[in-house]
């Protein structure tokens, strides 16, 4: 088992930096998810860790060893790919045994290790089949088995669940998490799906345009997003971000002057009047205030659409150009087109500097 230290990673393609100055300190047995939109550099980072791409500048340590110039096969890693990357002409057994065979592991030990790994991922009945005859989920399990059998110090996953259907994805998500905890192998997992990141990670590294935005635990990231990008990226549906001004009386008014909310006592101490971006998570907006909670502040909106999801209902409305989303309890009775009063929980608001996009921190005043 091993720590992974990424120090000032840069990946340069011509004049473009695909990854800029990325540093990550990944602890032994930790499950870290690299997350971000397409082209943010997350897969490139993973491929650099695997040794499949050269590191333009920076250092990579696996355990105590600097591995920048070590071949992928000697880095003691195993990787699971998005499209499984199984050898189509080999049986499941041969696929799993291939790496061991090349390492000249004795035949008897190969047999034993493959059978053990097959048991862990539930593939025992399929060892003699070829990948072409297996379903998507089974193929992904073969890829997992092939990774486990190597007994590596680090697991690398490159969007391994993207090709599976929604139901199977949830199931495999849990299986991978359980397996990782059971085997206690340091894991780096790349995905663009923030739900996967939230549910699986010990810590998430959110990236954008090659730059690390925030590296923190899922709950910290959800509760204290470092900037507007992270605020919009983590959480589903995404956080409502409303640009506006705070006046002397500590009242926030959005640019269209239609949305007003009194923030006295809820603003960080560092905030004075002026421009600001207010963040409200859809789940911190409520359909009623039966308990008369003091932090709840009423707002009037006109719903454009309501999506009943069963467990909740999503309400969509327009505030200026921004689509305002509220996640309400399913029993809330609201009709589209009618002015409705909702309640925002002011104790759960987020504040961002509109120029830098950074979170405004500080004690509540």
């Amino acid at each position, binding site marked *: 088992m091993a720590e992974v230290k990424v120090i000032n990673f840069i990946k340069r393609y011509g004049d473009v930096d695909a990854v800029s100055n990325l540093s990550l300190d990944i602890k032994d047995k930790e499950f870290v998810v690299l997350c971000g939109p397409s082209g943010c550099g997350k897969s490139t980072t993973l*491929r650099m860790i*695997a*040794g*499949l791409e050269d590191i333009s500048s920076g250092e990579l340590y696996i355990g105590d060893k600097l591995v920048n110039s070590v071949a*992928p*096969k000697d880095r003691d*890693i*195993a*990787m699971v*790919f*998005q*499209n*499984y*990357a*199984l*050898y*189509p*002409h080999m049986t499941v057994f041969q696929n799993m045994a*291939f*790496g061991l065979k*090349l*390492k000249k592991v004795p035949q008897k030990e190969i047999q034993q290790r493959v059978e053990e790994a097959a048991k862990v991922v539930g593939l025992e009945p399929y060892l003699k089949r070829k990948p072409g005859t297996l379903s998507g989920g089974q193929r992904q399990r073969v890829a997992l088995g*092939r990774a486990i059998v190597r007994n590596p110090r680090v697991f690398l996953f*490159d969007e391994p669940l993207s090709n599976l259907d929604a139901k199977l994805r949830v199931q495999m998500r849990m299986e991978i998490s359980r397996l990782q905890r059971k085997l206690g192998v340091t894991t780096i997992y790349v995905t663009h799906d923030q739900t996967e990141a939230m549910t699986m990670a010990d810590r998430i590294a959110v990236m954008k345009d090659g730059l690390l935005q925030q590296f923190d635990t899922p709950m910290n990231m959800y509760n204290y997003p470092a900037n507007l990008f992270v605020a919009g990226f983590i959480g589903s549906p995404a956080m409502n971000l409303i640009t506006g001004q705070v006046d002397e009386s500590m009242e926030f008014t959005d640019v269209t002057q239609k949305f007003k909310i009194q923030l006295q006592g809820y603003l960080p101490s560092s905030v004075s009047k002026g421009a600001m971006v207010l963040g409200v998570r859809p789940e911190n907006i409520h359909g009623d205030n039966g308990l008369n909670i003091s932090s709840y502040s009423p707002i009037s909106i006109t719903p454009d659409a309501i999506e009943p999801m069963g467990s909740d209902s999503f309400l969509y409305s327009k505030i200026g150009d921004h689509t305002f989303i509220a996640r309400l309890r399913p029993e809330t009775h609201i009709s589209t087109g009618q002015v409705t009063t909702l309640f925002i929980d002011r104790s759960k608001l987020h504040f961002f500097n509109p120029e830098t996009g950074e979170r405004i921190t500080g004690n509540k005043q």
Partner: protein
Amino acid sequence: MRKAILYILLCLFAFVFLYPFIWMVSASLSEERSIKDIVLTPVHFTFEQYTKLFQSIPILGSLANSLIVATAVTAGVLILGSMVGYALARHRFAGRNAIFYLILFTMTLPFQLTLIPNYILMVEFGWTNSFAALIIPAMLNAFAIILFRQHFMSIPQDLIDAARIDGCNELRILFQVLWPISVPTLITVGIITFMTSWNEVLWPIIVIRKESLMTMPQLVTLYAVGGRSLGQIGMKLASATMLAMPIIIAYLIFQKYFIQSMANSGLKE
């Protein structure tokens, strides 16, 4: 009804194409004096033409020579062509595109243009009158390289990466991971190369003089055209049939892959 007409038409065309071949085979099995007739089956069936053929030229020896040469050339083209194709498709290096375009360009040069320079090279190397002259210059060809390059470009990068992490070096990736999943392309390149090598006449005539080293097309051409058949058309046809048979048999065995791969690569030969 329309389908029936279509099939009748197709059969008619197929017959037009096949008839010369059918006639050649049946005439080679007929008596010399009956050959002038237009027939479907042999008249006065006999193996006489073949017996005379075997007596007058070392055709079996030349068959063995042809097999050796065509097999060695095919193996060379498959191994070296796939290596170059893989490097061009999957490795980033300075001048990669320039090399690829240069290889493409060589396809536009007619064989006749390089005939004399190649012959001079063979003389300089002392390879005339040896199989080396027939095999080595033919071991790399642009068509194979391009076909392999296009095919390898269609293989997902993940598969190659997985092999690299499993501990494969480049040669192992090519021969243990990519070759087994490239069978149709290998067969297409193999058949085309084998046929081209098998049918080659001009180059062997230039570099081989010893009868014991001659390939079958060379020997048959010299025999049929060069006057040793004594003007007997039956023996000429028997030698032509002998020449065509191996290639037809090979094609019949591999035609499924051949057509499949041609359809996949969108190329026509």
